[in-house]
């Protein structure tokens, strides 16, 4: 019996070691780095919280935070609205509905790096697909404001299907009896949506927001391939800034501090959402 008790720990050991080696250790090592000025070929110098303080006075870090925030808020809101609209549309009887649903999900399976390069050709100003068809020269990637919108557009293209699938599944789980009862009371379509569909979808919508926000804060590959962060720093998102700081400039201390700041912000947001989910269920 005692041996059996111990045996379960033996079986757990590989998983524990895995987590310790590949999650806990890198996290702790990164935390240590964030308190040091790390210079290749020299001793690391302890500098306390200076790396964290530096982030709040660094124009590039602040710009990256601003760009990321616009990207997350703008992108997730559009994805949510479009995903919801498509889910409502495709939950109704439509000709070739199953085929259309499948087509709708295709962008999800594309590799973001490939998507970035694909849209680079689509947005190409001198005769790219869109400008070629329209016969105009819209500066999709050369205008700083439009470039951020273009990056957002690609993210929306790729991730709206995810929102669509999840909400569609939730929609199909709402019992038809609720709607029938409301219709007996002559409720309008808007009333049905406002007082039945939306409240019933609320936990799912919050879950979708949580997942998309967490993912969108980490966005890297699409802006990296599509604009490389430019023009200027107009599409340099936070994770790209961290990557450049750490990996290209070997400023591992500052890069680690930035990564922890991002982690704290995302954790705070997620905890707020989870709190809201708990409230909804209670």
């Amino acid at each position, binding site marked *: 019996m005692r041996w059996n008790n111990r045996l379960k720990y033996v079986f757990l050991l590989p998983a524990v070691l895995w987590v310790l080696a590949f999650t806990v250790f890198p996290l702790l090592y990164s935390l240590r780095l964030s308190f040091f000025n790390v210079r290749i070929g020299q001793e690391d110098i302890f500098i306390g919280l200076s790396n964290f303080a530096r982030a709040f006075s660094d124009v590039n870090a602040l710009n990256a935070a601003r760009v990321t925030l616009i990207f997350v808020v703008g992108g997730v809101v559009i994805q949510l609205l479009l995903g919801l609209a498509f889910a409502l549309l495709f939950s109704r009887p439509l000709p070739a509905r199953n085929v259309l649903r499948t087509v709708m999900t295709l962008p999800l399976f594309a590799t973001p790096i490939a998507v970035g390069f694909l849209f680079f050709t689509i947005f190409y100003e001198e005769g790219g697909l869109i400008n070629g068809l329209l016969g105009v020269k819209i*500066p999709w990637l050369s205008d700083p404001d439009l470039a951020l919108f273009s990056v957002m557009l690609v993210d929306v293209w790729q991730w709206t299907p995810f929102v669509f699938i999840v909400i569609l599944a939730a929609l199909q789980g709402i019992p038809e009896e609720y709607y029938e009862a409301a219709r007996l009371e002559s409720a309008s379509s808007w009333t049905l949506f406002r007082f039945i569909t939306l409240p019933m979808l609320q936990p799912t919508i919050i879950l979708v927001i949580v997942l998309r926000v967490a993912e969108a804060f980490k966005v890297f590959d699409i802006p990296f391939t599509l604009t490389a962060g*430019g*023009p200027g720093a107009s599409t340099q998102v936070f994770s790209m800034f961290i990557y450049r700081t750490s990996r290209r*400039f070997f400023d591992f201390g500052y890069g680690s501090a930035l990564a922890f700041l991002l982690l704290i912000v995302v954790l705070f947001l997620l905890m707020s959402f989870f709190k809201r989910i708990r409230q909804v269920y209670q």
Partner: protein
Amino acid sequence: MKRVIWLLALFVCAFGLANAQQYLEWHADGSVTLITFEDNERITVSAEQLGTLFGPGQQPFAGKRIAITVNNSGPKGGISGPLYRLRPAWQELTGATLSIVEMPLAEQLPTTINDLRLGLNQFDGFIQGAWYMGEYVTPGFIIPIDDYITDPRFPQWDPSWWPPALREIHSWGDSIYGTMNDTDAQVLYWRNDILSDPEWQARYQAEVGTPMPFPIQTWDDVIDIARFFNGKNWDANDPDPDNGIVMHFRVNEQGHFHYMSMSASYVVRPGDTVDRCTNNYWFDPATMEPTINSDGHVKALEKLIELASYGPRAQVGWDLGTAWDWFLRGKAIFVFSWGDVGALVQDTDRSVIRGKLGASVLPGSAEVFNMCTNTWETPSEPNVVGNTTGGSWHGVISARSPNPEVVYSLYALMATEPVSLWNVERGWTGVDPGVSIHFLPPAGTASLEGYLAAGWDESDMKFYLDAYYNNNFSDTMLTYLRINGAEEYWRALDQNLSEAMVGRLAPREALNRTARAWDDITNRRGRDLQLKQYQESIGYNP
């Protein structure tokens, strides 16, 4: 049965022998012909050039393996291509095995530095860009090669082939670390068929009121001509209007290199010394104070922005290849860029302008800023400043490699006169001309026939070689930033240049921001350390 076994053994031996000599042909006088992979081109290296280490039946490094990092351009691409072409012949010569480790340009330095720092030591050598030198040399990650160069056992090449500026970027202090390979620099290319056309010259005079400033002397001449041609359909290749110039400013790529080359003539004041106001560009060599926001730099950036306005608007999001293609498709009068352009123009699959090319050293400036007196000076002749802008991609040897001699034998073979010429004449190799053996007499020792046999148009080639000779042997040269963190300094500049190019920052503000960023980088990396490296790298004596 026995007979069958004997026949099989014979066949295996014959096949093995045939294979062993597949890429080499030894001659009675000791010379050897290297046969390139896939293309089966033949390069003959004399016994003297080959050194004493190699010979028929000798494989001095048999069984050894080395790994070399290089940009990921593939087996037929620039810089990496020659390694693939020569690898089988070198392997047969040495008996060693070469692993070519391709890496994206942006990943090469971080990956190799991490490897060295963590002691993984996966690589024996690196085909590095010149700006990596400080990162590799100062922590002792690479070794000097002076002893190998003079060692008669190895393939022979001569550092005196380099012009002084190129020798400098392959060295640190008094030691040479890099083996001759590529020699990068930027020159001005133009459409000679258009600019030398009397009809266009007459139209220019009629419209502008002055004769076309051709041959070009200054950047103002370039601006005037680009302004005139921009928006006109001066080329019959398509019905659309064409541009005056094409550049590329996709951030985090190579746009900043163009600013450096162009601004040098406004900033670098000629003279015999190296100090704050003479032969200087980046920092005050006494204090490490950035000089990137001096009036000379600001004026240069203003000129660059004006010049860029005579190119396609989309170029702020373009990379190098896209800009080159624009020029090759006959859409721009000017491009100023690396030697690859001259070679690409010859490729009629990609270019419609073969035989129509003009090239020269980058133009000068009518005035140059004195950073000591903070005044503008007007020299009697335009201030022309040569450059070694770019990677000048060349091999260095890891200090952690157990096989440094094997690595050097590869680099040295690539640097021998016949192999180097083979690379330069073909152009697609990414190896650009720059040393005396690449130029035609009297400037050098190369032959016209070699270039013509490789497919060059004679007029294009003469313009091209003249431009590179005049650039590389210019009296005044732009110093190269090779200190630790060069990449980081340049990225800060690149981002602010891009902001200025799209109008989000005024030129002075963009350069002020760059100066502040440079100061932060210097402080973080250690001002004294950076200063010492900067002084060493530009030959400044306090």
